[in-house]
């Protein structure tokens, strides 16, 4: 009997079009975003691509050509994309998805170009998120690109957190940058002396201002803060030497030195005076948390773009590999299909493609989530201010009740009369979205970049030797090494795993996760070809393992799930990311199927595209489930001590040979079943010890068993996807130079 897992062969006709992507990533109704994407694409595939092709990446220095690229960004509206229309921008409302799309388009060609465009935003982000209204007005007005008729040069900024070793890196608390009172005239604003050295600072070669994290070196200043420093302030504003980096060379990076006297009004967010001391409104930690929370998502999308950008050049290379050879005449399989005759080449490309889809879906879902969260967060801030609640801790306490209500909502039965009232509560909405964002943001940054870098290596290898040359169409080798930077800056993988360790165990998130698991089971009922069932089982396994680890201890009696125990928490965070990415990938395909049927620009062909993208989902859920199963099994069993031949356990679990002989008389055949037998001379089978039991973990093994059988059909999906990849029509040539 045919099942959906063996549906008709996949026959997607062309690579996914813009219209398909707009539906999947939910911006088909947003003309502002579509225009931004087109605009960023035009700069990427002309100015940027020509620079890369002509070797502009080969210098560490900031060059006139690189500067020209920034001007092209200004002209194309990319620089102003994060500003409101009255500030010089053209998009109203939250802009997380907008920036994500711009970064995606630029990184499709070159990650450094994307970084260069985003770094200015990063410098302004502390001011945007936490600055006073005056600060926000001043620096945005200065940074806005000149309007037609203006000759003004826009200011560029840099964000200075990281310091020379041994100070700030992964651990952002170890600040050596200092701020002191330089003068405090009676009744006037204090003057501050700011000393800061930066390391690896993006945009620094040409920065006119920076936002720098510093800590107090003066009893009259409390805590830490972020300071705005301008190039013309009194003292030293040394742009420093360029970093000799091997990645993202179209962006500027260097190690600047600052020693400047500035007014206290440059403290981001302002300050109050309490007991004769200056108290910044926001610590540097509070500022950077608000900033990175949003900007990290775009970084994750940069790596996603590269994976998807690799598909077309690899297909073209594979197909044309033997053309021109004597035996390969047009019409022959060798001529038409080239390396695509080989199953492995197709399967590996399917893996790269599926990863790119999952990464893009996860990243765009997170960007959209922040667009939803932004206004709700403002509403929450207003409510808190109304209630006179200020400060992180007081706020957390005040939200505890809303968290409980959120969990209640998530576990509520259909038709519960309280539902409407709880849904309408803005604080409940806030904690729901906040808990989700606290997980999805680090997941995007961690998984897209880290796993993305690994998969970029696969993409490079599909091009053979060509892949690791400068001539490789699509610049795949650069994209591979660039992905390593994306995994590093704005918080390396360790930072993201550390954050997930905390946020993925929040009650609200876990309640949400249970709802998602049930949702995937429902999807599986209507769309078995997506692998949603496999995913749901993987999700259950992850949750089971988390709960198990939170209560279990290791062989030495030490607690397993613990902030310091990164060997437990970090892999579990990794496992979760696989699941989240797969879920978003499936949801995007469902959206495409639903909306595409009514969209005249795709209606004719959407069925085939959905079939192919579903197959990619299936391929990916199988891979995700495999990762989860591997990681969880290691964590569940790996902290138990293996029984040894010598310890006590041995006498209770092993048979002696004599004992077996006796038993054989009453239970014929038992001797053949026993594996761990001790001979009269004390010798035993040559292995580590008697086989370990699975007491307490049989539920896990059952789940693992189920997971294995859930994989049914996933390889058939891969075969189908591979067939589609071997037939899909691609353009004659890449639309950017190589």
């Amino acid at each position, binding site marked *: 009997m045919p099942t959906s897992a063996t549906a008709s062969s996949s026959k997607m006709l062309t690579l996914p079009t813009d219209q398909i992507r707009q539906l999947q990533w939910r911006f088909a109704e947003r*003309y502002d975003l579509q*225009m931004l994407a087109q605009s960023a694409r035009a700069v990427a595939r002309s100015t940027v691509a020509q620079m890369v092709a002509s070797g502009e990446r080969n210098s560490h220095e900031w060059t006139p050509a690189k500067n020209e690229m920034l001007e092209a960004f200004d002209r194309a509206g990319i620089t102003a994309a994060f500003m409101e229309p009255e500030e010089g921008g053209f998009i109203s409302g939250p802009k997380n998805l907008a920036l994500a799309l711009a970064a995606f388009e630029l990184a499709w060609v070159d990650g450094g170009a994307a970084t260069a465009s985003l770094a200015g935003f990063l410098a302004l982000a502390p001011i945007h998120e936490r600055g006073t209204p005056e600060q926000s007005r001043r620096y945005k007005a200065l940074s806005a690109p000149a309007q037609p008729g203006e000759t003004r040069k826009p200011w560029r900024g840099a964000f200075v957190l990281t310091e020379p070793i041994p100070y700030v890196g992964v651990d952002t608390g170890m600040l050596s940058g200092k701020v002191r009172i330089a003068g405090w005239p009676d009744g006037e604003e204090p003057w501050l002396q700011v000393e800061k050295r930066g390391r690896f600072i993006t945009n620094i070669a040409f920065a006119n201002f920076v936002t720098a994290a510093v800590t107090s070196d003066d009893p009259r200043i409390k805590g830490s803060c972020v300071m705005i420093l301008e190039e013309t302030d009194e003292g030293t504003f040394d742009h420093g030497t360029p970093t000799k980096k091997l990645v993202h060379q179209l962006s500027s990076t260097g190690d600047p030195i600052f020693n400047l006297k500035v007014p206290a009004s440059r403290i981001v967010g302002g300050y109050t005076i309490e007991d004769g001391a200056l108290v910044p409104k926001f610590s540097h930690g509070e500022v950077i948390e608000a900033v990175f929370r949003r900007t990290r998502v775009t970084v994750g999308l940069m790596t996603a773009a590269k994976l998807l950008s690799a598909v077309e050049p690899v297909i073209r290379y594979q197909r044309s590999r033997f053309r021109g050879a004597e035996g390969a005449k047009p019409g022959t399989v060798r001529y038409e299909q080239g390396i695509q005759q080989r199953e492995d080449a197709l399967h590996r490309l399917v893996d790269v493609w599926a990863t790119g889809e999952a990464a893009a879906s996860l990243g765009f879902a997170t960007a959209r989530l922040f667009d939803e969260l932004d206004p709700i967060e403002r509403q929450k801030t207003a409510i808190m201010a109304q209630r006179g609640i200020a400060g992180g801790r007081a706020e957390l306490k005040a939200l505890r009740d809303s968290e409980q209500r959120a969990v209640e909502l998530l576990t509520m039965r259909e038709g519960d009369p309280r539902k409407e009232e709880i849904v309408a509560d803005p604080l409940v909405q806030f904690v729901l979205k906040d808990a989700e964002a606290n997980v999805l943001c680090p997941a995007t940054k961690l998984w897209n970049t880290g796993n993305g870098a690994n998969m970029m290596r696969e993409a490079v290898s599909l091009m053979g030797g060509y892949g690791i040359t400068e001539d490789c169409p699509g610049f795949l080798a650069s994209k591979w090494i660039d992905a390593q930077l994306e995994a590093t800056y704005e918080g390396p993988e360790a930072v993201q795993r550390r954050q997930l360790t905390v946020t993925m165990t929040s009650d609200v998130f876990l309640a949400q996760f249970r709802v998602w698991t049930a949702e995937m089971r429902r999807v599986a009922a209507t769309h078995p070809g997506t692998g949603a069932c496999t995913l749901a089982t993987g999700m259950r396994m992850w949750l089971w393992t988390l709960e198990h680890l939170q209560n279990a201890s290791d062989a030495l009696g030490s607690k397993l799930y613990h902030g310091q125990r990164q060997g437990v928490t970090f892999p579990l965070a990794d496992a979760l990311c696989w699941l989240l990415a797969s879920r978003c990938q499936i949801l995007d395909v469902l959206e495409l199927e639903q909306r595409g049927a009514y969209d005249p620009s795709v209606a004719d062909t959407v069925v085939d595209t959905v079939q192919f993208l579903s197959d990619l989902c299936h391929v990916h859920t199988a891979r995700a489930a495999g990762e989860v199963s591997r990681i969880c099994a290691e964590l569940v069993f790996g902290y138990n001590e293996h029984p040894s031949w010598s310890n006590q356990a041995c006498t209770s679990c092993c048979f002696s040979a004599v004992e077996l002989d006796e038993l054989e008389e009453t239970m014929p055949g038992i001797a053949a079943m026993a594996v761990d037998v001790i001979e009269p001379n004390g010798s035993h089978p040559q292995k580590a010890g008697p086989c370990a039991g699975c007491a307490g973990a049989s539920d896990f093994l059952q789940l693992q068993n189920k997971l294995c059988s859930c994989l049914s059909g996933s390889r058939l999906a891969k075969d189908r996807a591979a067939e589609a990849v071997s037939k899909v029509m691609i353009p004659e040539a890449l639309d950017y130079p190589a």
Partner: protein
Amino acid sequence: MSLHIVVCAGIVPDPLQTLEPIAGPNGPALKNEMMLPAVLDPWAASALYEAATLVSKFPGSRLWLVSLGPKAKLQQVMMTIAQKVTFELVAVDSASNGFADASATASALASGIAAIPDLDRTKLLLFGGWESASRGAGVTLQTVGELLGITDQFAGVDQIDMREDGSFEVLERVEGGKHQASVCAGAPAVLGWATGNLPEPHNNPQIGMANMRTVMPALQRAKQAALTNDGQQYLSASLPSQQRQTRVVRDLAPDAIAQELVEWIRTQ
């Protein structure tokens, strides 16, 4: 003096795409044409950029872009084109492609233009491409002109110089890489553009957002036009074939290479 310029510009598949003629139910078509990304017809696009420059020089002038094609595809192309210059869109929804009958296309365009409110025919310059990048019949714009009763027509235009009295000088491409200069007493006139002299304007989403206020309503009210082919039949359709003859020769002296080139040129 002010001008009313109407630019007729269709859409064509992005030239980098694989274009493969196939036999469709209504005559020839391109394989997967609906899925191929489209661009504004490049010849007509130069007409649009020239028109925008001209309009900006004469205050009170207006610019309409009249485009006939599948509405969904037109919308996609507008996301780029509307960022380049300011115009008012008149969209005609039709399943048109490179094989549509030029005469049917021209009459649909002419009715679209005739229905533009506020269009002053005494100020009208009808712009477009001298041919299309899809098939290159090179007759559509002339026919639209005839249907609208405009008989001063120029083809292969690379330059227009407007004078204060409303007359203008036009440079048209002629054989041998030369231009023919003509002076026209004034509007109305038809100008089928070659490449012109202007670069493609940069995308500017701010212009795009301003244009969208009229572009989206125009797309929504786009009239449907079914193009008849009046018994026109295609016997075959194929792409122009690419020719590449390569010979690998090592260590040839520059003089010998030059000599060979000269001989080749002589035989052409």
